[in-house]
C-alpha cells in the first residue's frame, strides 16, 4: 500500500485540492457554510447623538480635526457623573503644548515606544498595544523550523451541549515573573512554567458557571502588576488579577497563587457594589484590568441588546495593591444615564505613561439598534477617549460614530505608535473599528494625522418612530477602509446559483444607501457591511516600530438589520445567537433581528475573500500588502484559502520580521513574512485561536504561545489548549 501512495507528492495533492475546491461549486454542497455561527448577545452599548456638520467628502479636503475632536470643555456634561472628575479644563491647550514638546524634543530616542526588553505582560503585550516583540531569534528564514515544545490543556471547556454554557476563550498568555499566567472560562487562574508548561499553581475562584450577561462563558485572561520598590519578605509584591462573570475581581500573589489579603475584601473586590443604576445584570469583569503604574483601570461587560435602559459604562481606577477606588469615569451624562446605559469599555485599554494618558475604546449606548431614547449629544460614546491617568479627567476625545445605532462599539485598544509622516515625527495612535476603518490621530491632542472627514450619511426611510439620525459621520481618508463599504457588496454568483437566486432576491429586499444606512422595519431590513461582527475585532492593530508597519486582520461580513415593532417582534422572535438572531431591546418600541446574509445552505451571499491580513506603511498610510487569511470551514470541510476566513483575534509581530496569528475558522496557527505577506509556517490547533498570541524569551530561547479556545461567532468549536512553539535547540 505505501508503495502506491508514496509517489504522490503532497504539494501536488494540495494544489489539486485548492484548484478543485475552488472550481467546483461542490464545495458548497459539502460545506454548507453558515460561516458565522450563532449564539450570543454581546458586550457593550450604543449610540450618541451628534450634530457634526462638515462639508462632504473630498479626500483632499482636510477635515477640521478640531471641530470633531472633543476637548475637555465639551465633555463636561458627559462627566458629570464622575466621582472625582472636577473641572474638565485639562483640554486642548495643555495637550498641544505637550504635543509640541514631544515632537521637538531632540533627545527623543530614535524608535520611541520600543520596549527596552521583551515584554508580554498584558492583553496586548505592551501597554501601547503594539503587540510587538524585539526578539529576533525566530526569523522569516527559520520560522519554518518551529516545533511544538509544550502544550497544556486546562480542562475548562464546554461545548454548550450540557448544563454548562459553551466556553469562549480569548485570553492572551501573559508572560511575567518568569511565568506564563492564564485565566480560563471557568474562572480559574493558572501559572505555568514558560519552558515546559508544567503547572506551578492554580487558583479556582469558585465563580458561578452561569452565562449571566453573555450567551457563553467568557474569559479574556489576566493582568499583572509588580511593585516598583518591592518590600523583601512581604507577599503580594507581584500580583495577578482576574475577573469573573459575576463581577468579582480577584488579586493573587503571583509567586504563590494565594489571595492578597490587603486587596479589597481579603483579595476579592466586589465590583458589583457600584452597580447602582439600572442594575438589570451584573457588571461582568471578563476583561482583566489594564495595569498602568500603580493603577488598575477596570471596565466591564454586559448585555446591551437586551434592554433600552442598562447599567451605564463606568471606568474604575483602583489602587493596584489595595483595590481602593481612586476615581471613576462616565461616558454618558447624568440625564442620559437615566434613559440609556452602557457606553462602557469591555475590552482592553492602552496608555502612554510618559505623557500620563489612558486611552479608552468606548462602546455605544443602549439599546444597540434604536436611539430614540437618546437623541441628545453623547460625544464620548463610540469614541476613543484620552483620560489623565491620575485624575480620570478627559484630555481629548474623538467620536467615531455619531448617534450609534449599529452596535459599532469601539472594540480594541488603540495602538500607540510614533510615526514619521512627511518627514515629521508624530506621536500617533491608530484606532481600528468594526466598520473596517483605521482612524489615525495625534495621541496627545486627538487631531488628525491624515484628514478625517465628516460626510453626509443616509437619513433613513421614515419607518422608525422617534429616531433622529446623525447628519454626518467621520470617514478617514487614509488609510483607506479595510473593506469597501461605499457600495452594496457584489453578490457571489456561486452562492446565488446554489440558492436558486435567493441571494439576488435578498439583495433586492434589503435597504442600502451606503455606509451607515440605518436599521429599518421595511423588507428584510437594512444591509450593513459590516455590522457588529466586524471589520476588526478586539485583537486590534499590531505595529512594527522599526519599519513603521501596521498589521491588522479584518473580516468581510455582510449582515442585515431589521427592526420589528413590539407586537411583531413577539411573533417573530426565534431566539438569539452570537452576533446574530433576535434581541428584544426591552423598553424600546422595537426589537431587532440581526442576520448574516447567507443562502439556504449557509453560503455567504457576498463575494470572497471573507477575511484578510493587511500590512500598512504608516509613513504614508498606504497598503503594503494584503492577502486572504485562513480558510473557512464547516462540518470539517475547508474552503479554498484564497477565499479567506472571517477572523477574530489579532496578530503579534517581531523584530525577526515575522507576523504570528491564529484567528481563522480553520483553527490553524500561522506565521507570515512581515515584509511580503508570504505564509511561512502553519500548525493545527484544537480550536480557533481567537486570542492574540504572545512572544517571550525564557532562558535565552524565544517562544511563541497561543491559546486556542474558539469563539461561537466563528463556529461551534471550543478548545482548552495552550500551545507553545520554539526553534529546535541546538
Amino acid at each position, binding site marked *: *500500500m505505501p508503495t*502506491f*501512495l508514496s509517489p*504522490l507528492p*503532497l504539494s501536488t*495533492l*494540495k494544489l*489539486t*485540492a485548492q484548484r*478543485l*475546491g475552488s472550481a*467546483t461549486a*461542490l*464545495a458548497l454542497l*459539502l*460545506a454548507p457554510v453558515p460561516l458565522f455561527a450563532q449564539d450570543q448577545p454581546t458586550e457593550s452599548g450604543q449610540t450618541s447623538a451628534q450634530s457634526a456638520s462638515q462639508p462632504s467628502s473630498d479626500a483632499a479636503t482636510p477635515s477640521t480635526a478640531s471641530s470633531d475632536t472633543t476637548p475637555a470643555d465639551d465633555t463636561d456634561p458627559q462627566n458629570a457623573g464622575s466621582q472625582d472628575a472636577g473641572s474638565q479644563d485639562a483640554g486642548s491647550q495643555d495637550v498641544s503644548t505637550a504635543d509640541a514638546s514631544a515632537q521637538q524634543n531632540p533627545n527623543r530616542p530614535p524608535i520611541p515606544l520600543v520596549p527596552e526588553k521583551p515584554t508580554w505582560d498584558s492583553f496586548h503585550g505592551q501597554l501601547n498595544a503594539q503587540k510587538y516583540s524585539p526578539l529576533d531569534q525566530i526569523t522569516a528564514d527559520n520560522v519554518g523550523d518551529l516545533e511544538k515544545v509544550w502544550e497544556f490543556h486546562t480542562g475548562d471547556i464546554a461545548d454548550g451541549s450540557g448544563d454548562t454554557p459553551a466556553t469562549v476563550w480569548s485570553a492572551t498568555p501573559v508572560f511575567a515573573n518568569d511565568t506564563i499566567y492564564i485565566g480560563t472560562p471557568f474562572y480559574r487562574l493558572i501559572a505555568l512554567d514558560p519552558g515546559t508548561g508544567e503547572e506551578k499553581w492554580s487558583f479556582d475562584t469558585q465563580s458561578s458557571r452561569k452565562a449571566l450577561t453573555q450567551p457563553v462563558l467568557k474569559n479574556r485572561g489576566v493582568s499583572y502588576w509588580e511593585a516598583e520598590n518591592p518590600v523583601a519578605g512581604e507577599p503580594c509584591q507581584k500580583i495577578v488579577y482576574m475577573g469573573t462573570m459575576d463581577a468579582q475581581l480577584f488579586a493573587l500573589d503571583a509567586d504563590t497563587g494565594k489571595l492578597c489579603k490587603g486587596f479589597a475584601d481579603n483579595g476579592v473586590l466586589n465590583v458589583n457594589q457600584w452597580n447602582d443604576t439600572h442594575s438589570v445584570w451584573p457588571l461582568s469583569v471578563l476583561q482583566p484590568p489594564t495595569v498602568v503604574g500603580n493603577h488598575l483601570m477596570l471596565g466591564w461587560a454586559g448585555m446591551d441588546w437586551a434592554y433600552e435602559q442598562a447599567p451605564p459604562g463606568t471606568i474604575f481606577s483602583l489602587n493596584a495593591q489595595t483595590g481602593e477606588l481612586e476615581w471613576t469615569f462616565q461616558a454618558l451624562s447624568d440625564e442620559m444615564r437615566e434613559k440609556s446605559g452602557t457606553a462602557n469599555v469591555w475590552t482592553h485599554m492602552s496608555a502612554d505613561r510618559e505623557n500620563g494618558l489612558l486611552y479608552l475604546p468606548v462602546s455605544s449606548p443602549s439599546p444597540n439598534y434604536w436611539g430614540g431614547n437618546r437623541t441628545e449629544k453623547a460625544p464620548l460614546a463610540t469614541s476613543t477617549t484620552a483620560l489623565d491617568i491620575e485624575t480620570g479627567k478627559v484630555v481629548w476625545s474623538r467620536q467615531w460614530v455619531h448617534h450609534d445605532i449599529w452596535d459599532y462599539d469601539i472594540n480594541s485598544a488603540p495602538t500607540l505608535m510614533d510615526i514619521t509622516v512627511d518627514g515629521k515625527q508624530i506621536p500617533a495612535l491608530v484606532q481600528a473599528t468594526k466598520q473596517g476603518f483605521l482612524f489615525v490621530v495625534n495621541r496627545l491632542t486627538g487631531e488628525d494625522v491624515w484628514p478625517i472627514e465628516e460626510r453626509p450619511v443616509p437619513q433613513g426611510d421614515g419607518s422608525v418612530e422617534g429616531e433622529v439620525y446623525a447628519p454626518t459621520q467621520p470617514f478617514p481618508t487614509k488609510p483607506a477602509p479595510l473593506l469597501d463599504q461605499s457600495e452594496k457588496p457584489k453578490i457571489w454568483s456561486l452562492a446565488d446559483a446554489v440558492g436558486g437566486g435567493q441571494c439576488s432576491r435578498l439583495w433586492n429586499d434589503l435597504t442600502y444607501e451606503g455606509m451607515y444606512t440605518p436599521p429599518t422595519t421595511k423588507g428584510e431590513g437594512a444591509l450593513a457591511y459590516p455590522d457588529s461582527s466586524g471589520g476588526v475585532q478586539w485583537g486590534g492593530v499590531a505595529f512594527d516600530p522599526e519599519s513603521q508597519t501596521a498589521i491588522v486582520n479584518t473580516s468581510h461580513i455582510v449582515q442585515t438589520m431589521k427592526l420589528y415593532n413590539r407586537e411583531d417582534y413577539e411573533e417573530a422572535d426565534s431566539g438569539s445567537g452570537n452576533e446574530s438572531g433576535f434581541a428584544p431591546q426591552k423598553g424600546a418600541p422595537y426589537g431587532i433581528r440581526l442576520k448574516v446574509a447567507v443562502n439556504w445552505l449557509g453560503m455567504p451571499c457576498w463575494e470572497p475573500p471573507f477575511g484578510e491580513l493587511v500590512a500598512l506603511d504608516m509613513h504614508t498610510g498606504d497598503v503594503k500588502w494584503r492577502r486572504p487569511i485562513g480558510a473557512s470551514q464547516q*462540518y*470539517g*470541510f*475547508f*474552503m479554498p484559502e484564497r477565499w479567506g476566513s472571517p477572523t477574530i483575534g489579532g496578530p503579534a509581530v517581531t523584530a525577526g520580521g515575522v507576523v504570528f496569528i491564529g484567528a481563522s475558522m*480553520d*483553527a*490553524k496557527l500561522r506565521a507570515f513574512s512581515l515584509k511580503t505577506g508570504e505564509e511561512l509556517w502553519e500548525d*493545527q*490547533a*484544537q480550536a480557533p485561536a481567537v486570542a492574540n498570541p504572545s512572544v517571550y524569551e525564557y532562558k535565552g530561547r524565544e517562544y511563541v504561545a497561543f491559546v486556542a479556545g474558539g469563539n461561537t461567532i466563528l463556529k461551534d468549536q471550543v478548545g482548552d489548549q495552550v500551545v507553545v512553539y520554539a526553534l529546535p535547540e541546538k
Partner: protein
Amino acid sequence: MSQSRSFRSGIIVLLLASLAGLALSLYAYFTPLTGVDGTLGALVVILSTIALVVMTLVLAPLSCRSGRVALRVLILLALVGTGFAGLLLHQWWLTAAMVVGLIGLLLDMASPAASTTPAHS
C-alpha cells in the same frame, strides 16, 4: 489464468485502497489536531469508506453482469465523492487512497475476464 489474475488484482487493489481509506478516515475523526477530528465531514468519509469496503466485497464474487455494472457505478461515485471530500478535509492521503482505488476499479473493469468469468471459477 492471466486474465483471472488481472481481475483479482483489480479487486484486491480496490479493497486495500478502501481499507486504507477507512483507516485514514478513522484516524482523521478520532485523532486530536487533525483539523477535522470529531467533525461531520470526517464521519461521512468513515461511512463512505465502509460502504466502499462492503461494495468491493460484494463485487468480488458477483456473477450477474447487470449487478456488477450497477455496483461499479456506485463504487465509482463513492471513490470520487470520498476523494473529493478528502481534498476538502485536507486529508491528502485519503484522496490518494481513493485514486489508488480508482485504479483498482479500472483494472477490474478493463479485465475481460471480469465481465465474463465468475471470480471463483
